[in-house]
């Protein structure tokens, strides 16, 4: 109850436009997401997850191409089916990751680690600079690995990795 009051108190101070199926519709237009909001039509809008690690489909910020926020989507479920799918596609494009299924080798040389892994789309090799900073733990079991180019790899469950893969990775956890 107290929490609720607090929320009400803060939300009374700021002005947020919440986007729902009642006031907004989204459409995937040849690789770009467009939006209609009332009378307004946006040729292209960009989506950003406010909490990308644990809320993939809630609290999504919608901005124009100049990164000026138009509004927030509280939950994709509050959008129409078609809008929801368009937003999901756009989010999956933006937050593209490759899932690591197994780790064949991690070789450490001169402050860099060279990874040979198998992903859902085949074998990959990449280099990671400073594992301390480049491995993000979403939970102790769920990891993101950033390579030197800025590509993102995801380990959905460390515990579910084959034993040998875990042995390679254990050092950096």
């Amino acid at each position: 109850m107290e929490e609720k009051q607090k929320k009400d108190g803060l939300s009374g101070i700021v002005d947020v436009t919440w986007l729902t199926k009642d006031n907004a519709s989204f459409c995937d237009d040849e690789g770009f997401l467009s939006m209609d909001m009332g009378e307004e039509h946006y040729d292209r809008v960009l989506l950003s997850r406010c909490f990308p690690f644990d809320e993939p489909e809630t609290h999504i910020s919608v901005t124009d191409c100049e990164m000026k926020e138009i509004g927030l989507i509280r939950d994709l479920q509050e959008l129409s089916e078609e809008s929801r799918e368009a937003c999901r596609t756009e989010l999956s494009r933006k937050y593209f990751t490759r899932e690591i299924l197994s780790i064949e080798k991690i070789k450490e040389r001169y402050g860099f680690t060279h990874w040979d892994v198998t992903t859902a789309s085949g074998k990959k090799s990449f280099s990671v600079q400073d594992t301390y900073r480049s491995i993000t733990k979403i939970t102790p079991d769920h990891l993101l690995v950033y390579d030197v180019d800025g590509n993102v790899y995801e380990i959905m469950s460390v515990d579910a990795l084959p034993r040998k893969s875990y042995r390679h990775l254990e050092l950096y956890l």
Partner: protein
Amino acid sequence: MLELSQRTDGAGEILHKMKVSPEDVLLFARADLNAHYDEREIVLAATKDTLLISDGDRVQTYALKDLQNPAIEEKIGTCVFIGEYQGKRKLLATLTNSRKQECRLFAKYLKMQMDTGEITVDEQDFLQEQFCPKCHRRYPDPNRKVCPDCMDKASIVGRFLTLAKKFKGQILLALLAMAITSILGIVSPYLSTSFFYDQVLDIRGKFYGDLLFVVTLMLATQIATILITMVSDIVTAKVSARIIYDLKRTIFDSIRRLSMRFFTGRQTGGLMTQINRDSNAIYWFFVNGFPVFFSSLIQVVTVFILMLTIDVPLAIASLIPLPFYLYAVTRVLKQQRWMNARSYARNRSMNSVLSDSLNGVRVVKAFAREKEETGRFNYYSTQAAEMTRKLTYFHNTRHPSLNLLIYFSTLLVWGVGGWMAMKGQITYGTLMVFISYVGILNGPMFSFVNMSDNFTRCVNGMQRLFEIADASPDVVEAEHPVSMPEIRGDVEFRDVEFSYEKGRKTLEGISFKISAGHRLGIVGHSGAGKSTLANLLIRLYDVDSGGVYIDGVNVKDMAFEDLRRSVSIVSQETYLFAGTVLENIAYANPDASKEEILHAARIAGAHDFIMRLPNGYHTKIGFGHQDLSGGERQRISIARAILKDPKILILDEATAAMDTATERTIQEALERLSENRTTIMIAHRLSTLRNADSLIVIEKGKMPETGTHVELLKQKGIYYRLYQLQLSALKNIGVEE
């Protein structure tokens, strides 16, 4: 054809499939995702009037005359190649970040071709090679063109040894001493075994009964060994320390010489830690690793030759367990390295949590989170302790096992040698000396295996240090600089372009003039590029194109000393060195008299608070001493700038950290100071700039507006809007401007 792809295989074949003649292709690159973000080889090719994109199945063709603004847009883990085709935004291709660089260049040169009808290659674009030309493997760090596999270790060591040249005599002495102690280390067991039993105790021996002689000889050998070892250790430690000192000095000299860009690309703390760590690795290799290796090598080779001369079968027998031992050592060391690294990582996490909580102790207490912080620390501390326990357990179990394994060597000699002694094939003394020699032979094997690791660490340390020593500064003084002991203070920026990172312009098309003695105000949002203008004027960085001029002379042609003496900057970031207040103010002009320092401090509004400090101007400030507030630090830094008495004064948000009353006081003082000096004032608060002769507005790196306060208000542009915003903010609190 300008081939931008890092992979060069099969370009001709692919183009053939796309039904394009390679001769017609001007640009060629590869993307790697299809429209559904599945990994696929996507080929981008441009002829003089067409853009072709193939995903292997079909080829999309775009007429360049209908295409506009091709560009790469970055997402989180991917990029998109977009453009406007026939007036409509078009997604041309998608790619992972691995292909970002080549596709960015493709877009850049495609636009150049569309705009100018030709492609002029900018060599800067290709300086940052990402792949080793020898083995074609990707450099782990594109900023360091060092391939760990192809690094020429011999030449690095050779270069290091040139530093040791001046200590040639001492090094030879140390090596000689090491060789002598190694030989003495072999003589000693010979005296106490074979010689003692066969020559002194045996009635047939040459020195039968001469106990005093042999004991004296043994003592003399021992004393000689100790003395020569001392000499060798002292010389080695002295020479190594001197070489490392020379190396560090060379590095520090290089660092001083390097431009800002070198430091902004690295973390300074990390850089210093790395230099120290590398120097230590080199030092310990030469003080500890190499001498042990060198003397052990002499001993092992000599002992083995001696063993062979004494008895070949027994010598061979003693070697039988050695391969097994070496294999086991390699395995154990590998595991040990792994555990050490893990222990290091866990300790690092623990230390990081500890330092986090201690640095943020005020916040921790303010939010009553002590319990949670303790819990967090306990978790990491337990993890680190657990790893230390495992490591100790590992040490205590594996190493004795290894000792047992190598002990088989001695047992074999005992068995085979004992049998031979019983048969009378060898004497008892020979057996004893053999047993001692087996110990000498096997003893250093462990460190031999470990040696390659230490050597690699040492060479890598040298490589990194030489890399810093070899780095060339971007900003260099002209070979024959124009001497300008006195300047008037005219400043001009002429069509300046600049970027901190390649491809992201920070400033573009900036042109303005300030006559000597005038005041220019620079207005703009945070991150617009205002402070960059100041950085360019004092040549912390050099412009990419255009020029910055003082009294009509390009700053690139001015001597550093003249330039930096003439321009003084008070920035929003203050840095005070550890020392007294006096030393910090006098930093700008060490020859200034105490009275001048007092005046400078008064003008900066610092005098009053300095006098409240326990030791006045002699109060120590900086790390571990008197703590000053942001405003106080800023005022000392202003006093420092004032003391320099420059012709050009840059005030970069100089009074932003102060309360309004103090700001007003210092503003007045600064205004008095800026009379007859060219002054550039950078500020958010427009009221700070009310006395400027002219103003420029910087917005996203460009200069959309320029004029006086009145002119800019009339333009009703960015300045007008900022003015209105600040005015209404003042009105809200009941203040009318």
